[in-house]
């Protein structure tokens, strides 16, 4: 498929190809490899099992300035600790790309904002989100007020926390939910 050096077997590429253009895929692998040249093998034909730690991925320029970078990486990793295998890495990029559908983004956005992984956005999650967004420049009362307001607005079933249904309902109506 253009590149002489085989990183993937033909079958593997075939499988990937429909989802992503091949060139793009190997470029992504290049990025992955770049992060830790000593850890990631160039040869991916036998699907080696290696994972990159959170600290390395977070330092990518795409994520470096993002206040939620740790959460993003964690929510894409299988073990919840932020260690990403190559498949999860690809996953992350495909969701963050502009081609990804809105619904999928909503699902992962919910995961990202759900700090304590209980499938609900409760007040603590919102507080954390807010503090990350504003670099803790708001007073505690203001944070409190904003969180209460946000919950009041979006909570449809009255349990004082946002389930995914609430979140989706709210986020799909947002004018600038594009990322």
């Amino acid at each position, binding site marked *: 498929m253009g590149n002489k050096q085989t990183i993937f077997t033909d079958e593997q590429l075939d499988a990937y190809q429909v989802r992503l253009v091949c060139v793009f895929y190997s470029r992504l692998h290049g990025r992955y490899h770049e992060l830790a040249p000593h850890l990631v093998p160039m040869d991916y034909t036998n699907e080696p099992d290696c994972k990159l730690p959170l600290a390395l991925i977070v330092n990518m320029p795409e994520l470096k300035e993002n*206040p*939620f970078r740790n959460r993003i990486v964690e929510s894409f990793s299988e073990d919840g600790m932020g260690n990403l295998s190559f498949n999860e890495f690809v*996953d992350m990029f495909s969701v963050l790309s502009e081609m990804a*559908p809105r619904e999928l983004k909503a699902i992962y956005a919910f995961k990202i904002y759900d700090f304590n992984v209980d499938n609900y956005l409760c007040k603590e999650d919102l507080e954390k*989100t807010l503090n990350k*967004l504003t670099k803790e420049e708001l007073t505690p009362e203001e944070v409190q*007020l904003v969180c209460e307001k*946000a919950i009041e*607005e979006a909570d449809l079933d009255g349990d004082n926390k946002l389930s995914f249904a609430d979140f989706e309902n709210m986020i799909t109506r947002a*004018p600038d939910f594009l990322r």
Partner: protein
Amino acid sequence: ERHRGKRRDGDGEKKKRKKRRRKGAHRAEEGEDEVQTRHERREREKRRRAKNDQEAKGRERDEEERVQTTSGKVAKTKKNIRNENTRRRVEEEEVEVEERLEKRKKKHGSAKKEEKKEDEGKQMVKEKEREVKKKKHKKETSEEEDDKEEDSKDEEMRPECLTPEELEKLKEAVDERKKLIQSLRGKPWPMKKKLVTLRESQEFVEKYEGALGKGKGRKLYAYKVMMTKKWMKFQRDFENFKTACIPWEMKIKEIESHFGSSVASYFIFLRWMYGINMILFGLTFGLVMVPEALMGRPYGSMPRKTVPRSEETSAMDFAVLWDFGGYAQYSVLFYGFYNNQRAIGWLKFRMPLSYFLVGVGTVAYSYMVVIRTMARNANESGVGDDNSFNFSWKMFTSWDYLIGNPETADNKFASITTSFKEAILEEQESHKDDNIHLTRFLRVLANFLVLCCLAGSGYLIYFVVRRSQKFALDGLENHTWWERNEVNMVMSLLGMFCPMLFDVISTLENYHPRVALQWQLGRIFALFLGNLYTFIIALMDEINLKREEEKIVKFNITTWEASLYNGTISENSTAPSITINPADVPRGPCWETMVGQEFVRLIISDTMTTYITLLIGDFLRAVLVRFLNYCWCWDLEAGFPSYSEFDVSGNVLGLIFNQGMIWMGAFYAPCLPALNVLRLHVSMYLQCWAVMCCNVPQERVFKASGSNNFYMAMLLVILFLSTLPAIYTIVTIPPSFDCGPFSGKNRMFDVIHETLESDFPAWFSKVFSYASNPGLVLPFILLMVLAIYYLQSTSKSYRQANVELKKKLQTQNEENKKKNKRAALKAQMDLEEARKAASQAAEEQKNNNASLQGQEDRQLLASRAPGPRTYHHGNHGASGYLPGFSEPRMCRVPSLQRH
């Protein structure tokens, strides 16, 4: 045999489940299911094939099956429904108690019956298995329930049996797989699972697409994906390019992020103004100044294009040039320089006509732009005002995930914080309810005070102007400096102190800062109108004086010419006027140029004062506060002088009045738009810098109203007020006899008549004269007024309907929310009771298998009377209220564990 049959039954069920799932929402387990079933299917298929070989009847049966498939569709669907039901019952059995609670009692009876039925069914199944015939039948059902793929696989093995029906089925299956492949990227599965599913579906499609005869779909798909990707990238790049093309966007964004949207709104307004002035500048420069400079008669060829002999010595002095006298006065910059020659140059450019049309076009264009912008703003604010998720959206969607630059990120953090602060302020303001009577009283009082101030200052201006006119009549020489400059001094003093006074008064009113800003703007606007009024009155006086002077000069010139001719005729009869240098010819005062000069001087002095106050009031103050703070008795930064805030209202008004001057003066001084463009350009940079380096954000950062229609409204008023005197002078005062493009005409607009008569065919002027007949014009105006009235009333009714609908929607939303909350509360209560009931049921089961009926009765009682929470039965302690279990679905978990 029997074993296999059972297996198959289960298999079929699984398949059906899968099918149903796929038809419904895509669930996450689908892939797993698929993988499992695939293995099983393969095994089974192998087995069956072996059987087929063994049994000679196999083929026949298949055929039979097919026939039955077509004929007995109704029965099949019925069976499907029943099977579905039984499956649900099985599940229900597992979570018996809870499910029963969820579904109300009425359903229960039927459920029980169903269970019984199901048991019967099971038995029947067993019986069936023994009998060959029935077995056949059963197999058929399971086969039917099997995915079409199963069938199609058989068909594939034997392509000669491919009936159109199967072909259809196969197509469907392939399409389904394809759909799956396409929708795969939208599924929240981990990549591994996606890959596995994808590979399988792909294999399937590849295998059978060949049978259907369309194989190259994949490449096309990949190509399509690539193209969409490219297209999206292009779109994004184009967006970026567009934003990059907007001037000062980054600067304004930066200011907005630190100072809030109200300060940014001033800069946006400034930018908008700059755009308009660019257009005006283009018009006057391209259609008036350049043609005259290139194609008109050169400097020195005519009296109006030369500096008179008396001024020649000082014409190049900087002081004179700075005052726009000397060479500047006799240049393309002012009205007087233009010649009244009808067509100039080889292009036969109609200079006077062009001059007139540009003057009219400037005003018309400004009106059009202002009104259009206002309308658009009104539209925007009318439609996109959905604030139902204000805070949530701010919280979850405000971060821009494309930011990769630390500085931008810092700005973004600041802007998010500011926007949150703005939103909090709005929220607090909307919930503030103080003593209404007191606020009302205070507001009335404040308005009264402001009115007093305005009336006082108006009278003062009037008084001073009258006095100065008296002084002017007496002659300025025998008065003191103060008496000579009284008007200017009073004006500037009023302009300095009244806004402060208004500011103090407005604290009484306790308005939201945005409303307060509008009030402040309105009041200062009223004050500044006095400024305008004195200026116009002074100008009118001057014009009248000049016109009288002109009459005298005209008379003198005729006598001078007569004497000249008398002299020349006696000496030499040929070429009398060549000998006279144009600089020596006596000329009129040319009031138009004087007016233009006045405006240009005003603009220059205004610009200078703005810049100097900026440098002294903001920059110097900031420097002093910053560096004297180290050695001062009190804290300068927090205490008295502090840093200055950005004065939005003053700056906006300055801008608006400045623009008014441009509109008034542009007809007499074509250079004004150019000057204004320069000024706006410089002040954009200067003020941006000053704001970022020496101002502090306002104490209460507030959100500017999304559409700054208030600024626009003021601009419109000023535009109207400034075009009035300009039009008045054009229409009523005859132009000077010896300068400007309209010299020699009775009125300036005569140029239109002249053009119509000489440049257009006769019929056109005839039509025009008919059209301008009052008998036609008046009905037309009437019609327009009626149309406006009609549109106005319809738009009003639409707006009302809109408001009504919005209200309805809101109440509905609230109702829904309430309903949901009530339902959730009820579910919670039910859950609590259910847990109690469950625990009790367990207890009772332990003791003896108590009848379910009794328990249900009790439950019914409990749910009917939920008020008293004391129960006589069960152990409350074990099943107390658990905050985590709020949804009824969750209660299955403990019960499942128990069973």
